[in-house]
């Protein structure tokens, strides 16, 4: 027989004599001991019932105390969860759809005063043809290019009817398998894309992912693209009413204030281990490049680190000395008694190195591009993207500023903007590769990705993985898991999609398969 030493120790801690403890712990765990009755204990320990009664009381008393402690712990946890829930943000109400405001937006880029425009609108309403203002505007533009500037009502009618016929022939039939057509139409030219395209897209030092890798990136809905870039356009005039976007110096200045500047970019950092301080030697030419000066650096550093910073020259500092733990000038006196530790010094060095003195986070570099040959406008091309912060910067034209980070657009401007961004990015990359893919295919892809209110990837974690039908999901990946889960829960499958019907062996709900026939009895025949 083996005596459990842990149990014995526990019993002795409760104040039970060693002799009894030894006998009780003999081949018994604590869980076995605590359920023993007084009679059993008397038997084991070979004592009278009075002694045994005392021992049971001691053992049971200790277990009760432990239970009590556990119970209080549980309620504490529960309370914490409750308080966390109450802090949850309330859901914002849906915004009302303002038709008039929307109409103003729609008509913003349209030349409403053109006589041809109104003539075509009149003809369309007369003929009962449903045609959007934008399409009519496009027709007007085309007509202007051909030198027409006026339309008689008869001509307008002809134009509208011909446009309507063209649109009808371009329209896709109901039940057409557009998704398959899209997949093929993007896939086939995709095979012609070079696998890896390293291409400097015209702009110096800005290298953007292109070709197939970029298409995959868009379709996968990656949170951050491999090469995030922005094109920042500026407003016509600054706050003082002076020209801004055509003034290279001012644009240069804005670019400098956008770009992230760390301490390392403008100074060489020396760690003086013996004296326990940091020496920053400011680099003059780099400072000038970043449009900063010594005092500014000193102020920013001292504010960020909450430390007093010594300078060799108060007006034009060149060398800055930082001592860990010295928050004001008076602290310098106490330094001899209480010198900073070595670890504090290394921590400070780390902090100083990474400190952002100027610029916006994630904007790694900002270059001024231009001027535009026609307008003389400069713009800023960046490596790294931060749409929300850049948009808040004064002087930036938010309407034209562009980023290739789709997730950022989704976060800052919403799904509809993200949908358009996906289309734009795909058009750009496909065009760059010299491939001609109809936009409508890209529209389909973009719609599928964004139709659920967020940008979903095409694949396991996105569109294919979140399908409603169990059979369709299990046909894609991890078949058994999906079927098992659905079986346990008791899910239903409405057999609406294509995959489900193929599995079941029914005609699919596409094309001919989705047509339902009716017999027309003789009375109903004309």
């Amino acid at each position, binding site marked *: 027989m083996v005596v459990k030493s842990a149990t014995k120790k526990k019993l002795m801690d409760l104040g039970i004599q060693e002799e009894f403890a030894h006998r009780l712990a003999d081949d018994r765990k604590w869980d076995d001991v605590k359920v023993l009755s007084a009679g059993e204990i008397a038997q084991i320990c070979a004592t009278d019932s009075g002694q045994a009664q005392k021992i049971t009381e001691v053992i049971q008393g200790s277990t009760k105390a432990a239970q009590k402690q556990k119970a209080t712990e549980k309620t504490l946890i529960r309370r914490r969860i409750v308080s966390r829930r109450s802090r949850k943000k309330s859901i914002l109400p849906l915004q009302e759809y303002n038709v008039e405001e929307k109409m103003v937006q729609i008509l913003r880029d349209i030349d409403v005063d053109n006589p041809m425009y109104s003539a075509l609108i009149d003809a369309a309403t007369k003929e009962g043809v449903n045609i959007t203002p934008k399409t009519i505007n496009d027709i007007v533009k085309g007509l202007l290019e051909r030198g027409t500037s006026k339309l008689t009502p008869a001509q307008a009618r002809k134009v509208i009817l011909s446009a309507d016929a063209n649109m009808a022939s371009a329209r896709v039939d109901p039940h057409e398998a557009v998704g398959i057509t899209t997949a093929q139409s993007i896939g086939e030219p995709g095979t012609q894309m070079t696998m890896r395209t390293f291409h400097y897209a015209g702009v110096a030092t800005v290298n953007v992912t292109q070709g197939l890798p970029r298409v995959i990136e868009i379709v996968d809905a990656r949170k951050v693209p491999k090469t995030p870039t922005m094109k920042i356009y500026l407003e016509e005039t600054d706050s003082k009413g002076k020209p801004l976007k055509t003034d290279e110096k001012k644009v240069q200045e804005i670019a400098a204030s956008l770009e992230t500047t760390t301490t390392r970019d403008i100074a060489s950092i020396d760690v003086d281990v013996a004296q326990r301080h940091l020496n920053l030697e400011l680099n003059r030419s780099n400072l000038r490049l970043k449009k900063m000066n010594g005092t500014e650096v000193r102020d920013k550093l001292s504010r960020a680190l909450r430390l007093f910073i010594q300078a060799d020259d108060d007006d034009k500092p060149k060398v800055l000395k930082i001592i860990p733990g010295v928050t004001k000038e008076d602290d310098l006196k106490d330094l001899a008694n209480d010198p900073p530790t070595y670890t504090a010094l290394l921590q400070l060095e780390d902090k100083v190195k990474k400190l952002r003195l100027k610029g916006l986070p994630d904007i790694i570099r900002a270059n001024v591009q231009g001027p535009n040959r026609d307008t003389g406008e400069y713009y800023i091309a960046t490596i790294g993207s931060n749409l929300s912060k850049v948009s808040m910067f004064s002087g930036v034209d938010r309407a034209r500023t562009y980023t290739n980070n789709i997730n950022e657009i989704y976060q800052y401007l919403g799904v509809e903007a993200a949908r358009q961004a996906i289309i734009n990015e795909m058009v750009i990359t496909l065009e760059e590769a010299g491939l001609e893919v109809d936009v409508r295919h890209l529209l389909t892809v973009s719609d599928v990705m964004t139709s659920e209110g967020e940008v979903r990837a095409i694949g396991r974690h996105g569109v294919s993985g979140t399908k409603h039908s169990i059979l369709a999901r299990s046909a894609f990946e991890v078949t058994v898991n999906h079927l098992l889960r659905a079986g346990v829960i008791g899910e239903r499958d409405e057999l609406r999609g294509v995959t489900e019907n193929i599995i079941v062996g029914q005609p699919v709900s596409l094309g001919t398969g989705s047509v339902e*026939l009716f017999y027309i009895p003789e009375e109903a025949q004309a």
Partner: protein
Amino acid sequence: MVKPTRQHTRFEKARIIGARALQISMGAPLYVSEGELRENFMEELIQLYGTEDAKARFVLDPLKIAMLEYESHRIPIDVDPHTEGE
């Protein structure tokens, strides 16, 4: 005459003709007369049976007959149930 309520899409057209051709192939009475068939498929009949026999026989591909019936709007099948006011 059974005019469709609207122009059929190519899927609907294919489905209607297919359904009708199946009926014809199984011996359903035709909505077109023998004369009409001869008129439309003379060359075909000659090719199939020779100049002499073509005058007596008119067995044809049921799909072709169904298409002829469809073109002349005689198939009492539509994608719309035509049930007015119900």
